[in-house]
């Protein structure tokens, strides 16, 4: 089994294509961080106080409007005590420190998803479309072991990407903003009061929750890959489903049953921010729904891969 995993890794990393994709991702992350750094210049040093006070004024002004959107109203009313807490306790806002950039980089996780989908969509289908599957399956390893090794290789690959993303954004933002304010807490409004949270812990929570959605996307791409047996179709379909799924979700939000849809549950960070897709959805509900989909997709992959004849 270890050997099979080594094989799959060899096929991923000893290939130019993989490194071009990783390079592309790194370039995006670097570019994105530079832009954010540029926009954040005014908040550096002691500028954060003025920035926060200005922000507070803006929100207070907005709150006076009567036709304000309900979501925005909650956001503003929760944001103002956080700003006050910053000013009163002389805790600097993450704005203008490396933490802001690193936090924002987590949103580039979509790039990781995209990249993993491309590789995962290809990992089974390519063996079929190039014909190498014939030599792969006539070895003393059952098909289920080969399937599992490919799946594990994909999970590993996404973890490598996640780590790369984190390391790049940490170093780059550190260099741009200076490695200062290492123990800066993150302020968060929960249960009617402002609490201090550990920044790194919060960061990793975001990264890992993003990771869970990546795992789901891998599983979908994997299933499609073993169903279609053609790389182009598998990659195209997987990416299509991810984007179409999210667009469709918006349209279906008014229906109660839409909370059972996969894409309503993949983004678990919705619970960290306290704004679930539907009221009444909880973290454990989403995890339950995801687990059902996860098992279903893997069952389909397994059936498709192990039961069908290799013809043509």
């Amino acid at each position, binding site marked *: 089994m270890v050997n*099979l995993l080594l094989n799959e890794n060899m096929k991923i990393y000893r290939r130019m294509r993989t490194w071009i994709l990783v390079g592309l991702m790194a370039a995006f992350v670097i570019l994105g961080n530079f832009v954010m750094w540029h926009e954040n210049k005014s908040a550096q040093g002691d500028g954060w106080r003025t920035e926060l006070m200005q922000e507070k004024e803006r929100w207070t002004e907005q709150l006076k409007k009567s036709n304000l959107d309900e979501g925005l109203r909650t956001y503003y009313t929760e944001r103002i005590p956080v700003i006050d807490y910053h000013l009163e306790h002389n805790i600097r806002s993450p704005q203008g420190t490396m933490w802001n950039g690193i936090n924002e980089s987590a949103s580039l996780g979509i790039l990781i998803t995209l990249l993993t989908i491309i590789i995962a969509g290809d990992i089974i289908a390519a063996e079929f479309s*190039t*014909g*190498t599957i*014939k030599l792969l*399956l*006539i*070895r*003393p390893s059952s098909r289920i072991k080969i399937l599992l090794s490919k799946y594990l290789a994909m999970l590993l690959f996404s973890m490598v990407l996640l780590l790369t993303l984190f390391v790049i954004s940490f170093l780059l933002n550190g260099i741009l903003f200076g490695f200062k304010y290492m123990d800066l807490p993150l302020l968060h409004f929960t249960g009617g009061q402002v609490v201090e949270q550990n920044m790194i812990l919060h960061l990793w929570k975001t990264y890992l929750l993003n990771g869970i959605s990546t795992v789901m996307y891998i599983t979908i791409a994997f299933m499609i890959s073993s169903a279609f047996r053609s790389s182009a179709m598998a990659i195209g379909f997987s990416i299509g489903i991810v984007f179409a799924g999210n667009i469709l979700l918006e349209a279906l939000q008014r229906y109660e049953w839409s909370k059972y849809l996969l894409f309503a549950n993949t983004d678990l960070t919705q619970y960290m921010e306290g704004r679930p897709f539907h009221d009444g959805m909880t973290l454990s509900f989403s995890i339950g729904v995801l687990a059902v989909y996860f098992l279903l997709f893997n069952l389909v992959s397994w059936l498709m891969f192990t039961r069908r004849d*290799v013809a043509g």
Partner: protein
Amino acid sequence: MSSEPIISLQNVTKRVGRKTIIDDLTFDVPQGEIFGFLGPNGAGKTTTIRMIVGLMSITKGQILIKGKNIKTDFEQAIRHVGAIVENPEMYKYLSGYHNLVHYARMVPGVTKERIDEVVSLVKLENRIHEKVRKYSLGMRQRLGVAQALLHRPSLLILDEPTNGLDPEGIRELRDYLRFLTRTEGITVVVSSHLLSEMELMCDRVAIIQRGKLIDLKPVQYFTHGSDTFQTYQFEVQMPEQAIAIIRRIEGIQELSISEDGLLEVTTEREQVPAILELLVQNQIRVYGVQKVRRSLEDQFLELTGGGQIG
């Protein structure tokens, strides 16, 4: 054990939907034999080979490799098999060497030394670290042979191995297979639609058409006819009269006049002097007699009725 066949097919049948692709195939191949699997395109050669190596499921019957069932005991059965299933398709973005490392990792006990040994056996030492993308077809074929031999299989399966090889490459492969059967006692099952190839390569040949086994004999039987009956050509003065005369003799199987006016008689060896005697007695001049060595191709066309696609 020489008594136990290396591979045994027992009533193997393959159906897809309502169509029967392989119909009740049964044969054994003993150790050290080069066994040819011959048939027109679409006869079911590739399907049979894919069932042997477990790429396709078997609808009915069973396939045993060294006594292990390929369906229920896949890992134990396939361990003894090395195969090239159609063109050897390798990972083009890896080097030849990494391709071999890839397959070596999948079977326990293949050392680095063994990889080097196989590489030198197929004479790829100089190019093995280049990417397969840069290989010529002949080199890919050789890499294909290398991956099939890595784990010292007892059974080597080749599906249309000569496809795309030049005559030199074909001869090399043939000599190589002979070498392997003699030195390592490897058993070879090879499929082809090229009759002349099979004639030179194989010990025994099975002919299949439309999924059915229609004949299975040592290759000499196909080329020389059976032991008792053989065909002789007589160059005679008046073939029509000669036919009328020879017809009186008992034990003649076939009698005809060939396109170039030769009399063709299929009979037992002992009848030849009698035929000659009779012709001379009847004042028909005989200029020559010779034994016809039929090519596998003739036999094949005869057996398959012109070799339409089944």
